[in-house]
């Protein structure tokens, strides 16, 4: 009953034509592009991978086998664990967290510097310089790092020229290139939210604290960081989600023996042609990353409404 009233008010405010146009667009987006696809993927992940003729037949029942495969592998007795896939999953999550923390420390000083020294031409130049790599294709950025980290790449040549090493270091196989690439790919998504909140901090607060004799670390701990917290958490959320879900960087920069979890999903889809298994893995990735993000937001007492500001 109440709902009906809201709708009638909505249409009174917007008129029938505009009201239904707005409703239609939002409804199409949320229902057909967001909610139903996710639900159908969830449903899909609980079904067997059957040949087309048997779909909808008596064998087409719900099953947990796709999820069990992640934990136990192809072992039907559930004695041994699927260590390969589980290790990939754990590694993906931990590495994504490490990349996020690395980005926080790397970006915070710059965000503070840019946010607090407003208006000068030099700062404007820096911001323009920051925006340029933002619009270069993700794949091209990974490619650029590959040129640098490759076997006969610039970094190895430089190290050998300086006689720091004799043999070229295999950065790709040791995953150094991958971590550098992931950090590189999403660093600006950490910087800009931080910069925006620090810019809104009243400089007088810092001055006042300094007049009262507070040291720099203390000023940052008690004034700047609490103020910047929504920006830091929103940046961290985006970097974590995007690096855990990254596909291009691991494909281009990852070592041949180590995989990223999204690459497993990709393999289930395109190499094994088992969409159900791939959907199950994708659900695991989605749910676990969301749980981690919500936990972190709860710990730091930040709302969803702060994201994207």
């Amino acid at each position, binding site marked *: 009953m109440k709902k009906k009233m809201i709708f009638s008010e*909505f249409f009174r*405010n*917007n*008129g029938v*034509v505009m*009201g239904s146009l707005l409703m239609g*667009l*939002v409804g*199409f*987006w*949320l229902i*057909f*592009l967001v909610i139903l*696809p*996710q639900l*159908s*993927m969830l449903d899909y992940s609980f079904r067997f991978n059957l040949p087309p003729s048997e779909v909808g037949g008596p064998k087409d029942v719900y099953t947990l086998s796709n999820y069990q495969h992640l934990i136990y592998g192809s072992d039907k007795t559930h004695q041994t664990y699927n260590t390969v896939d589980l290790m990939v999953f754990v590694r993906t999550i931990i590495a994504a967290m490490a990349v996020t923390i690395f980005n926080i420390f*790397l970006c915070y*000083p*710059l965000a503070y510097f840019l946010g607090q020294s407003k208006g000068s031409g030099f700062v404007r130049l*820096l911001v*323009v*310089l920051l*925006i*340029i*790599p933002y619009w*270069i*294709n*993700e*794949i*091209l*950025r*990974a*490619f*650029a790092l*590959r*040129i*640098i980290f*490759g076997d*006969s*790449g*610039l970094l190895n*040549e430089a190290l050998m020229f300086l006689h720091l090493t004799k043999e070229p270091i295999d950065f790709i196989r040791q995953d150094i290139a991958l971590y550098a690439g992931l950090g*590189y790919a999403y660093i600006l998504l950490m910087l800009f939210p931080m910069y925006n909140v620090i810019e809104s901090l009243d400089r007088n607060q810092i001055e006042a604290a300094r007049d009262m004799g507070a040291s720099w670390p203390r000023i940052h701990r008690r004034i700047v960081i609490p103020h910047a917290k929504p920006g830091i958490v929103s940046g961290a959320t985006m970097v974590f*989600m995007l690096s855990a*879900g990254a*596909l*291009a960087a691991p494909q281009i920069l990852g070592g041949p023996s180590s995989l990223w979890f*999204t690459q497993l*999903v990709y393999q289930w889809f395109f190499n094994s042609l088992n969409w159900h298994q*791939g*959907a199950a893995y*994708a659900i695991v*990735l989605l749910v676990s*990353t969301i749980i981690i993000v919500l936990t972190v937001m709860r710990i730091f007492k930040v*709302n*969803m*409404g702060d*994201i*994207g500001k």
Partner: protein
Amino acid sequence: MNSKSLIRIALGVYLIIFFSYLLGPLVVMSLTAFNSSGFPSVSPWACFTYEWFNVLWNDSAIREGIFYSVIIGLGTVALSVSMGLAASIVLTQVWAKFRSTYYTLIIAPILVPGVVLGISTLVFWDRFGKFLGAGDGSMLSNLFHNGIFLTILGQSSFIASYAMLVFVARLQRFDPGLTEAALDLGATHTQAFRKILLPFMRPAIASASVLAFLASFENYNTTTFTIVDYKTLTTVLAQKVRLGINPSISALAFIIITLTVFAALAFEAYRRNQARQEAVKQGKAKVKSGGILPSFMTGNPAAIVFVLLAFVAIVMIGTAQKYSPEQCKIQVREAKQAEIQRRIKELQEQRLIKSQSEARQGPDIFGAPEEDTGGKPSGAFGGVFAPGNLSDDGDTQEPEAEKPSGGSGAFGGVFAPTNLDNGEGN
């Protein structure tokens, strides 16, 4: 005072590190586009060349990819900007208790991994087609399995959230009283929207469109699942980079970087010009005239840099028509040849010394075929230093001349003694 200058130095060092991490790879990649070496690298610099731009231009897969990327980009802009605008208007009117849930719903697609969005789009439309009873080969089924259609929907699902964020920021400054006044004066809701809200939102619509187009153009994670049998620029690039890289990709990157730099400078120059004109209008600044520079460049460093860079670019394109690195290439080839000859000689001498010492020690210490491998008996590349392998290896282009370019298996025939006799390198 002392600690202040220390902080300044630390800040300078930090800024240099940060920006070289950010921009260094792009600069290096741009440089590799001009090196004639077949593998993208800068350190063994061979010749300055424009040939990779030619290779790029003649690459039909990339041209096709760009074509589909633009089509998908335009479709995504149309869909996601209108959905984002509608969602932001609804956000201002939604029932207060429901607002945070609604906001979470429309912001969530940004946070969902692109892979998940791609898969769910693919799966959903496949099943939706079956649900509607569309048989294989019918028009509806073809549409729901069409890569362009699926990619536009998949990308719009999260790009609409970006557009929505742009609109929300602008809508906060909108005065709803204007619309009410129009309605009081007898305008219909549609008229009020078209004549009041839409003109107010126009700058935001422009920037959201640019943002949406770029986001669509560079998307990979979602596209790779939804594109099915079409190709976009990013999927073509990903395939090329994974299968084997050559500097024509650097050439493409160089073009994109140049365009980005020009766009950023033009935008900055335009903004400064606007700000200046505003200041002149308000009487805060005087109109300087009679300088050497044209009026739009005065007090506008971005515009000056823009014009200078444009000049450099024109000169480069002009010389590219005439410049030919053939002479240099021949020199590099000769140098390489000399290097190979030197190596062969070295190895021959080594072998000579070795065989002499072996002759003294007796033949059964080394196995018969292995003794040919010279100084490196057991390594994977061992046999390739054998002289016969290189003897008619006239035009080795790659720096990795050590790799066996002939032979049947990976390193198959190189250990065989016959390999040396008839000199079958290639």
